[in-house]
């Protein structure tokens, strides 16, 4: 076996073991192809996601703090794929670093010490900064030439301003840079940072139909062939609900919504069968065939 170039501990989060299995699968495929080691944190559990921090801040911080201390058992910075888990873990580090009282409360709650030193990194950061865009471009076997991609950040990857430390919160470029390294063409579009409606998908789906429609319309207006996301919830709203959105607004998009690692996987030669393309609701195959990417 060839030696890995980089090694990370890995926190997949619940979605990646359920509705976003294809994100997990393609992430592992891409990292393997790039010779980046990923070792799953043993016994990791839910970060608390939106429900926990809406109900009880201490609960939310404690869940993440416990996961962070578990992550200490595995070597390497902590790689996170889901934008929400990433946001919760970073927020916890941020809050507990600046607030000693909270930190003590959390230590009591988890009956152990809090460790905040391990860097928490989103996949984008690992690819763009640690691995490097040049190396990524070199690893491309099948350039995604001619594929126009609307890179969708959603809310949590860059906000609130001081927390994620991933890129500029108002005008980020990291997603565009990563996908451009594969030869694809990121389009310039207006809604890459607007909210998709997120959790309202369950309680007030009307909100989602509205907000996600604006995102799809904007991507289409900009001439995108597809949307690229890094968040299971955004994916759900844009992909799973797309038909409903079309019906509610009397439009037709047929816009495939890929996880970033699915597109990267195509480019760096991960076997198509290992990218979970078949579990996408809006069928991407006609597009990929048209662009001769299959």
């Amino acid at each position, binding site marked *: 076996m060839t030696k890995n170039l980089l090694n990370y501990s890995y926190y997949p989060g619940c979605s990646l073991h359920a509705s976003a299995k294809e994100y997990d699968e393609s992430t592992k495929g891409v990292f393997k192809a790039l010779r980046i080691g990923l070792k799953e944190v043993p016994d990791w559990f839910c970060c608390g996601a939106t429900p926990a921090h809406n109900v009880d801040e201490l609960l939310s911080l404690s869940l993440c703090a416990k996961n962070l201390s578990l992550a200490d058992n595995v070597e390497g910075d902590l790689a996170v794929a889901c934008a929400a888990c990433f946001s919760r873990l970073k927020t916890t580090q941020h809050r507990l670093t600046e607030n000693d009282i909270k930190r003590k409360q959390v230590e009591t709650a988890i009956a152990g010490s809090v460790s905040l030193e391990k860097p928490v990194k989103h996949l984008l950061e690992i690819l763009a900064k640690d691995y490097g865009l040049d190396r990524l471009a070199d690893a491309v076997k099948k350039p995604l030439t001619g594929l126009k991609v609307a890179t969708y950040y959603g809310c949590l990857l860059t906000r609130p301003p001081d927390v994620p430390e991933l890129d500029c919160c*108002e005008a980020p470029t990291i997603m565009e840079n990563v996908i451009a390294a594969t030869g694809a063409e990121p389009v310039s579009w207006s809604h890459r940072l607007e909210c998709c409606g997120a959790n309202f998908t369950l309680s007030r789906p009307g909100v989602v139909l509205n907000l996600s429609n604006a995102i799809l319309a904007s991507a289409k207006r900009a001439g995108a062939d597809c949307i690229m996301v890094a968040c299971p919830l955004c994916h759900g709203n844009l992909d799973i609900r797309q038909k409903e959105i079309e019906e509610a607004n009397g439009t037709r998009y047929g816009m495939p919504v890929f996880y970033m690692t699915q597109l990267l996987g195509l480019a760096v030669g991960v076997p198509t069968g290992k990218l979970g393309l078949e579990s996408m609701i809006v069928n991407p195959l006609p597009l990929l065939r048209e662009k001769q990417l299959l």
Partner: protein
Amino acid sequence: MSRIGVFVCHCGENISRTVDVERVAEAAGHISGVAYATDYKYMCSDPGQGLLKKAVAEHKLDGLVVAACSPRMHEKTFRNAAKAAGLNPFLCEMANIREHCSWVHEDREEATAKAIDIVRLMVERVKKDKALQPITVPITKRALVIGGGIAGIQAALDIADCGHQVLLVEREPSIGGHMAQLSETFPTLDCSQCIMTPKMVDVANHPNIKLYTWSEIENVDGYIGNFQVTIRKKARSVDMDKCTGCGVCMAKCPQKKIKSKFDCGLGTRPAIYVPFPQAVPNAPVIDRENCTYFKSGKCGVCAKVCGPGAVDYDQQDELITEPVGAIVVATGFELYSIAEKPKGSSIKGYGEFGHGTIPDVIDGMTFERLASASGPTGGKILRPSDGREPKQVVFVQCVGSRAREKGISYCSKVCCMYTAKHTMLYKHKVHDGQAYVFFMDARTPGKSYDEFWRRAVEEEEAVYIRGMVSRLYQKGDKIVVMGSDVLVGVQVEIEADLVVLATAVQPRQGADSLAQKLGISYDTYNFYSEAHAKLKPVECATAGIYLAGACQGPKDIPDTVSQASAAAAKVMTLFAKDQLEREPIVARVNERNCVACFYCKKVCPYGAVEEKEIRDRQGNLVRVVAYVNPGVCGGCGTCQATCPSKSVELDGYTDEQVMAMIEAL
């Protein structure tokens, strides 16, 4: 044996609430060398000062300690009283038992003990005080005004009208500043050019004003009453004495596509140009960066067509040194640009507004040029992108201002008013158009200001939406403005044809380096600092330098003109005397001990230390020592703290005095 008087003030209850003032007076009476001690409710009042004067005479006092507030507050008051009582004023010192004691402590016992200690220290200091004589320096009765906007113009005219010579230095080819760019002005909507240009002409014709345009300050030496300023007169490439201002050169210049800075990039100008037709002086300059002759050596058309032969390609920058007695700084402001800012800048720019890449998103000054009858569109409101008349215009206030996350927390003060003005000018020109304004608060204090704003809302039908804008993006030929209406609690989206941003008022770039040349202080944003926010709003802490206009903080024209006239009045007050008296708290070098390391010269913030040559009778150089110019010395004592051979001491703060104070503790 000294005969010192100690006067303990109650300051109403400010001191007596926490300090037992009677006990302090009583204890002071027992300090050796104190001949008289008492307390009084308000020492600074007329009866209080009377009591002090009477005591000096009755008890033959030869030194005074007033235990009261900070010396910054009343040292002058009591030194004047001492002088009136026949004592040398520098034998009177303040013991600060208010700011340093009663205001910061709660425990009465401890505060009283501390107050007694403070008094004891000051008694020891006064024992070693020497009678000092005020320093007099001559005054050069000529003023320098830096910046030829309305502030500089007003200050220069006032000083010149009073009979004094003024040098007015402006770095652009013409005076006028921002006011020359404005269309009509709030709160009366009179035409800016119409009220501005007569003043510009007055400057040009005034026998007492020497105008240096296309010039900058290279260096400033000296001190109040006696500055030496070096002015860099940049090569204009046109001989001002020969030029008649006929304009043929500009008409014939083949290079015509240069974006006009004066028109905010909307119009174009030739390479040899005056920034605007009413420019003063009316002689053009050659923009050497864009001139074909300077770039390739070919062309030379302007020289050929110039009748009087005024074009001079070989002209060089000139350095001119002039003596002046006072300086008025009036360098004005510039507007925040929403473009991406260089890394490390504390200012962030607006990514959410596209970092300035959407052509029909303009700033307020650009709108002024669109609305100006002498502007690039002849006063028609037309979009920069396609020249169409916009039917929906969105104005956004507080862009950059009051936005800590963007690097600026202050209010820019003029935007609420000029945005209201813009909505009116727009409505007057585009009758079927609709103006929307996103605002945080409408801040309209000022005479006739709120009435003006209400007219915009109530009569001219501007729709004011309280809330901020989160994003602007281009959609077809519209700009979508996404914002919130916080009063109704809904999100708002408007498809606009033109968006006007009221961007923050900032100091000029390079304001800090000019301040360093002048030795004046500035705040974290680079606005120049006044000596006292309330009581010395036009003076700098550096004596002889005054502030006028927006370089000190955002200001509208009425405030700017008032401050300019106030600065001029300060200059005239200074020039009213022939000699200037200065406090003699200055450093003195013991030339015998000085080892000429010149650490003092390096650390002196006032540039007061010089190298002095000591020669024998034959004129041979024996030694070089440090010399402190008493006219320049600010009395800070940094040299004294730095000197390794203990050869420099500040009068009133000698090592001996400080040691005596420490020993008394």
